[in-house]
């Protein structure tokens, strides 16, 4: 991911083929082998390149601490697995390759900063540190306030619900509840406060489910957004290929390839 981003920023990427090279859609997304020779401005990972002004290294726990590990293991060890999901269901692993990709984002940022400073730098990225960094609220709750947040615990009032044609993400803040209540047409004193809704979560969900189940994602989103409630549809990747917002902004390219996810002065960097 760090190399892919550097390429999108305009760097020339040389990527030796190796036994760990990804294949299939993953390989096409991240980039396939590209032969070439140095000299190099930076070397990423176990490239075997010596003498580049910037060396970007990845490890599991830090320099020299690199035991066998999986992304599921990183999610588990960092607490990011245990906190995601519904309390009455198993923990949920964020889809895709989030620990590795987040480490790639951090690595690219650090590599650019090292180049900006003139090089002569070795940057280390710990996949565990990055995954824990993403999960900072859980760590901070424990270290700062002595709380142990739990999956489906006191903050678990955001969840998905079935709609007539899929699911929607029910997301709202306390200030939004009067609008949510009006939209759903509910009037039950048990649910007037956040604490009440959490205490009676099952009853609350049972009450509101039919309203969502009877409407399409588009209708629900339109109604919620008109009230400025941050509810949105759950969309599958296949739907995103023709998504109006992505199409209007030119985010999805040929073959479904996503572009660099920002524009600079209206133009997307594309290498």
């Amino acid at each position, binding site marked *: 991911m760090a190399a892919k981003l550097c390429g999108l920023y305009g760097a020339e990427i040389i990527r030796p083929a190796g036994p760990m090279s990804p294949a299939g859609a*993953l390989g*096409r997304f991240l980039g396939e082998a590209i032969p070439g020779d140095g000299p190099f401005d930076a070397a990423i990972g176990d490239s075997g390149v010596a003498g580049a002004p910037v060396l970007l290294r990845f490890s599991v*726990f*830090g320099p020299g601490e690199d035991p066998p590990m999986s992304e599921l293991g990183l*999610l*588990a*060890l960092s607490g*990011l*697995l*245990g*906190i*995601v999901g519904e309390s009455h*269901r198993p923990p949920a*692993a*964020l*889809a*895709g*390759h989030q620990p590795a990709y*987040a480490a790639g*984002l951090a690595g*690219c940022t650090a590599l*650019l*900063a090292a180049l*900006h*400073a003139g090089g002569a*730098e*070795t940057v*280390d990225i*710990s996949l*565990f*540190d990055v995954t824990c*960094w*993403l*999960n*900072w609220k859980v760590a901070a709750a424990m*270290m*700062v306030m002595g*709380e*142990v947040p739990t999956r489906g615990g006191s903050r*678990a009032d*955001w*969840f*998905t619900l079935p709609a007539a044609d899929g*699911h929607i*993400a029910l997301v709202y803040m306390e200030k939004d509840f009067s609008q949510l209540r009006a939209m759903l047409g509910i009037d039950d004193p048990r649910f007037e406060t956040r604490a009440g809704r959490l205490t009676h979560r099952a009853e609350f969900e049972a009450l509101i489910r039919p309203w969502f189940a009877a409407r399409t994602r588009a209708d629900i989103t339109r109604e919620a*957004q008109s009230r*400025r*409630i941050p509810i*949105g549809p759950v*969309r*599958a*990747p*296949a739907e995103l*290929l023709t998504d*109006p*917002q992505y199409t209007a*902004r030119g985010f999805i390219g040929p073959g479904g390839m*996503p572009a660099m996810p*920002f524009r*600079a002065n209206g133009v997307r960097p594309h290498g």
Partner: protein
Amino acid sequence: MAEPPLKGIRVVDLGWLTAGAATSTLLLDLGAEVVKVEGPGALDPFRNWAGADPARAWWDESPWFAFTNRGKRSVCLDLKDLRGRDAMLALLATADVLVENYRRGVLDQWGLGAADLRKRFPRLVIASISSQGEDGPERDMVSFGSTLEGTSGLAALTGEADGPPIISGRDVNYPDQVVCLFASGAVVAALMERDRTGEGCHIDLSQRELTSFLLGEELLAAAEGTPSPRMGYGPGCAVEGDVAFWPGGSAPVRDAKALSESPEFRAGTAVLRSPDGTPAKGIPFRFANRPLAVHDNTHSLGADNHMVMAEAGLDPAAIAALEEAGVLATRPRRGPTK
């Protein structure tokens, strides 16, 4: 010891909550100087995220705010007031970077829109971090991080095959976290380009796009007609009790307590300490020759009003007049919202 990578770079931070504010914090950690600007009527909501006691100086007591914003200089300036807007323009004249994640259109209403700022300050790098981006039919769609998990494709693929799609929720808000790692890099790249061309730029960054980008292979698979189903932990993986298993290995599923007590976490950099000893947001990279650290504590609201405004060229009488008018302040105008 070499100086930190962004030594000498000045950042004005109009970032709220995590996406904007923690992007600026990473730039701070890389050596930039960051001035966080909030209005007396528009504080960073993190100051009142987990409840506040109206009888106390609640605006300076939020652990969530302190954790994220440690080390930044603090200015409390009313940008809705023309005098405040002018003071902000004076500040931006001395800045290299502006980071903001206001609702689209708000800064334009105040005469601080990106197009105007680009004309006034051609060398300024403006990072606008938004849910949907600056344009498009859903530009104004109200979203939190977990809304974007829904609209980006992440929720559709997260969860058990026979269960509902899962969002990470209030304790994680995943897109708000991951965008900081990316946006800070986009700012550094823009600074490098400025070094080359002399021109700043406006970075229009959509959090929703980034979240989908991080599922890039799934978009390609869907385009090929072989979309992935929602499949829990993936082939050969499982969670039984509090242990996660994958082919060839296993690991405990930690909660907050187990995480904070683990030796790897304590030896790592995900959470560090401010000089006053309070836990602080950590730094997700290590530089061998330019060691990074948390150098400063959290500043109280408006603690740096005088010094920052003076550095922006305002004379003492002008600063006093702003204070007299309540445009420059050290406390909010209202009590905490519920």
